[in-house]
């Protein structure tokens, strides 16, 4: 139940300019939630960000992505709602 400063919801694929910008904007108190095309970031080059990384499981399953990694947490829509309540601010990219 740790507090989050800003929750960044990132739905763009890694080639979209907002993807890199979002990652570079996140500070250590922030969380980044990859949804929709954003989860493809988990399949491409290593993601470098100061924030906590999470990904939406239904979108990962749709795209055939494995949730076996330990470098990020996977959540469902209930978890996404919980994140938005714990964050002081929510930004959708």
């Amino acid at each position, binding site marked *: 139940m740790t507090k989050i400063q*800003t929750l960044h919801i990132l739905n763009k694929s890694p080639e979209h300019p*907002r993807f890199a*910008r979002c990652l570079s*904007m996140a500070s250590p108190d*922030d969380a980044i939630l990859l949804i929709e095309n954003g989860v493809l970031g988990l399949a491409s080059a290593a993601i470098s960000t100061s924030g906590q990384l999470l990904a939406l499981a239904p979108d990962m399953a749709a795209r055939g992505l494995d949730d076996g990694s330990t470098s990020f947490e996977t959540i469902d829509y209930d978890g996404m709602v919980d994140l938005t309540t714990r964050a002081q*601010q929510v930004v*959708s990219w």
Partner: protein
Amino acid sequence: MSTLILIDQPPYGGWTGREALDMAFSLAAFDQPVSLLFCGAGVNWLRKGQEPGQVRQKSVEKNLSAATIFGVEALLADSDDCNRYGLEAAQLLSGVELVRADAQLFAGYSHTAFAG
């Protein structure tokens, strides 16, 4: 409770930037503090001498110049992105403040949104 509206889409090719402006003007009309941040290709909104008559659109230069009169607190632009698009100070619309779009800037606003 100050809002930052982000514009990262260039003008005329799409409507998202105009719709972001409308959001900012709307907040200002309701006396809600709001600033605009132009970043990425969105900085091209700020170039002087736009003449969109041939593509049958209206220039947004006037709207942007009037933004502060209508209550928008600041027109911010990412300085790196201005450099990237060859926008020197002399070519920028007046009243634009160059900043670094980073986590520290975001921290000064309670709400941050794109139009699309």
